[in-house]
């Protein structure tokens, strides 16, 4: 039996009320008022599709042994690198073993379902036992465009395997068209599109029925056989029309989070799938359909295992961890749309030494340190000579993963002098549960929330962006643990 073993999701903490966008930019095009409802999820200044994919991947692990993962398929249309495997950065950050198959799936917005399909078929064919699939996007609409309001940032993660699956893979059907509804050229930052009416009337109206009907006919099923139909279409009126056309009842229609997150590109159908799994019952049949340069339709049947499965924070947990982005201009600065003055410290040219990064890759990307075999002291960064003054053993260290540990705040400050996209820069010392200590930036929090003794977890984030050389550098930051509201 092949299928989904575990799932996870990630929605960034900050949400931008769409009315704020309209208040700022509506004067350019009053018709964008039609997209003004709800809020969009906005990646923090140090988040991108890689860091969100890692967060969703971690969520999907739910305590699973990460050394059992044989591969990682990463789907996104907003990968930071065109050359340098983005999935490779994710595997290092996730602490996966080196002997994994990793691939980037990009291009059309159906890349997410295609990656999931590829993982399912790799496992079914016996090519791998366990593959993680992460889909994540952080697309940008030009200020004053409808897309600026419609798009949101989010990620989903799945572990695909054999045996104890929570949702068995039952088949798929795909279509591919070079349909230029949305596109971005090789050097474009912002999405462009053709007319909405054409996208609705030719795109959604034709392709979704085609792929769904094709699937049903291939497997001899009816739409009523499904507990949930999960499909990508952000147009509200069009969803109603399609539901009616295809016989999808209100109960069967898995919400698309348009008013909580926004359209999250290649992750859209998979974020919806992760959300659907949270409420799924044994025996439920799920149909997942993507849209973008064609469509994939995938069918799953939920098993008894879902009742005993430990789950992570998921989409609903992520959604509950919410903070309002107080001003629209912050979003513009975080996305580097508005070139704000950050002072001389932001211009320091300390460029990436690839050789040094290679040597320290486990530490920098995975937050691996060492633990002394003689006295048991965990230490970060990894040391040759034990830092415990009572021990001092030489070269008796084993690798030790810190990223999955909890910690607590020992000291902190809020720094107005440091170059930051979100001053004050909050940082301080953190002690890890079980030993070890490090100085981390704190994110997704305010200075007023900080206190010594506060529990924290660790999040993979973009540490710097070197504009001159187009390099995104990553490291870990500490996130204070809050009660989910």
């Amino acid at each position, binding site marked *: 039996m092949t299928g989904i073993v575990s799932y996870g999701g990630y929605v960034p903490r900050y949400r931008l009320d769409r009315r704020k966008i309209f208040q700022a930019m509506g004067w350019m095009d009053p018709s964008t008022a039609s997209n003004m409802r709800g809020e969009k999820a906005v990646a923090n200044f140090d988040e991108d599709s890689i860091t969100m994919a890692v967060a969703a991947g971690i969520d999907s692990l739910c305590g699973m042994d990460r050394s059992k993962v044989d591969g990682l398929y990463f789907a996104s249309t907003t990968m930071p690198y065109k050359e340098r495997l983005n999935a490779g950065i994710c595997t290092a950050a996730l602490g996966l073993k080196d002997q994994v198959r990793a691939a980037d799936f990009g291009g059309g917005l159906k890349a997410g379902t295609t990656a999931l399909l590829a993982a399912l078929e790799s496992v079914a064919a016996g090519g791998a036992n366990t593959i993680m699939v992460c889909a994540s996007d952080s697309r940008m609409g030009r200020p004053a465009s409808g897309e600026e309001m419609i798009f949101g940032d989010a990620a989903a993660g799945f572990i695909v395997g054999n045996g104890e699956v929570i949702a068995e893979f039952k088949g798929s059907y795909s279509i591919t068209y070079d349909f230029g509804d949305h596109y971005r050229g090789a050097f474009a930052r912002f999405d462009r599109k053709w007319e909405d009416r054409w996208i609705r009337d030719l795109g959604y109206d034709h392709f979704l029925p085609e792929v769904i009907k094709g699937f049903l006919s291939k497997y001899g099923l009816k739409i009523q056989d499904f507990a949930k139909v999960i499909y990508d279409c952000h147009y509200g009126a069009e969803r109603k029309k399609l539901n009616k056309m295809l016989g999808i009842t209100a109960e069967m229609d898995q919400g698309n989070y348009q008013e909580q997150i926004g359209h999250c590109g290649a992750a859209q159908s998979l974020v919806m799938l992760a959300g659907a799994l949270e409420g799924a019952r044994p025996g439920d049949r799920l149909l997942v359909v993507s849209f973008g340069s064609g469509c994939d339709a995938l069918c799953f049947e939920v098993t008894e295992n879902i009742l005993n499965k430990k789950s992570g924070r998921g989409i609903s947990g992520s959604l509950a961890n919410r903070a309002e982005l107080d001003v629209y201009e912050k979003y513009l600065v975080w996305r580097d749309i508005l070139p704000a003055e950050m002072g001389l410290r932001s211009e*320091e040219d*300390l460029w990436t030494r690839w050789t040094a990064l290679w040597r*320290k890759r486990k530490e*920098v990307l995975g937050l691996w340190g060492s633990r002394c075999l003689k006295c048991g002291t965990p230490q970060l960064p990894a040391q040759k000579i034990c830092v415990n003054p009572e021990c001092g053993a030489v070269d008796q260290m084993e690798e030790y993963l810190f990223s999955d540990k909890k910690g607590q705040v020992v000291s902190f400050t809020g720094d107005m*002098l440091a170059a930051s996209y979100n001053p004050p820069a909050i940082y301080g010392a953190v002690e890890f549960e079980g030993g070890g200590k490090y100085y981390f930036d704190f994110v997704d929090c305010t200075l007023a929330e900080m206190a010594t003794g506060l529990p924290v977890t660790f999040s993979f984030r973009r540490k710097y962006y070197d504009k001159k050389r187009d390099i995104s550098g990553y490291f870990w930051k500490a996130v204070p643990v809050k009660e989910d509201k």
Partner: protein
Amino acid sequence: MASGIKDKVAILGMGCSRFGERWESGAEDLMVEAFTECLADAGIEKKEIQAAYLGTHFDEVNVGKASLPLSLALKLPFVPATRVENFCATATEALRAASYAVAAGAYDIVLALGVEKLKDTGYGGLPGGAGRGVNARMEAANMTAPGMFAQLATAYSAKWGISMEKIKDAITHVSVKSHANGAMNPKAHLRNVITEEQAKKAPMIAYPLGLFDCCGVSDGSAAAIVTTPEIARSLKRNQDIVFIKAIQVVCSSGEEEMFTKWDGSHFATTRRAATMAYNEAGIKDPRQEISMMEVHDCFSITEMVTMEDLHISPKGGAYEDIMSGFFDLKGQVPCQVDGGLKCFGHPIGASGLRMVYAMYEQLLDRVPEERKVKNARLGLTHNLGGFPWKNVAAISIVGRG
């Protein structure tokens, strides 16, 4: 067992430039200014200098590497010169090297000079990552100096259960006192008296440190010429002579940074360096025996915890001492008698020698009555370079006779 250098080295002369935003002066000008005063004070000719040590830190925006900036600027007489660098302890390292050279008998008369030209960096405060190497770019928090030291306050509050409000009261007193002292000093960078209200209302730099909790970033240079006690006595007949009683430097092992025993509220290095310096100088009870101090008050909170690390205040007791005026100019152990890093200024590579200069002029009774320390016998200077969790602590003790 090594006996240390107590009374084996005498200070023959000292000089110090005016500190401040010396827009008109380059590092070379500042070196000449400090050196000219130093040489005249020593009462020797330049050709008698047998070796020299240059202390400077930010070489990329300053004078560049090697010792040549010193020998070229001063036109030294073809003597061995060496550049030393150890963060904010740089100038004390230059003095230590010069003193050790004399104590070892390698040379009779040696120059130590520190200089820094910070106002060519373009920064208010210090530049960022250059001093921390390539690893700082790849990992760790995006920190600045005030943010690193500000954390002492939150950790100290947690350790001793002293509220952040009380800590702010104490560090405000520290800054107000330094401004009062600096205002009387014609060579100091910041010469304005401030009120507690001003200090507390100032813009936040790094919580809980406001603008007045941070030291001045200045240009400046300071110098000393050291020699043997015999030469000093022969050249300075019937005059008081200042001797080196101790110079100790302690560097972190990584224990504070990585081992969880350290609580972030104090300086492990300063504590050890102080014990070593008191032993070298033969001081049993520093609270009673030390006459005055210049400590590394890069930030007001640093000065506060340093009072405990130097074994002057009891652990957890700095608040009481500070608020009672114990470290004020007319208190029992005056601290920052010349304004400190806070107001005299902090050109990194010159600060250690500037501190010794402040002690030296007090010990030789060369200061006007208004800022004079009564019965000054032993002066302590203290530098701290780096981060609270990994640093270089340097302490020197100088005294008469």
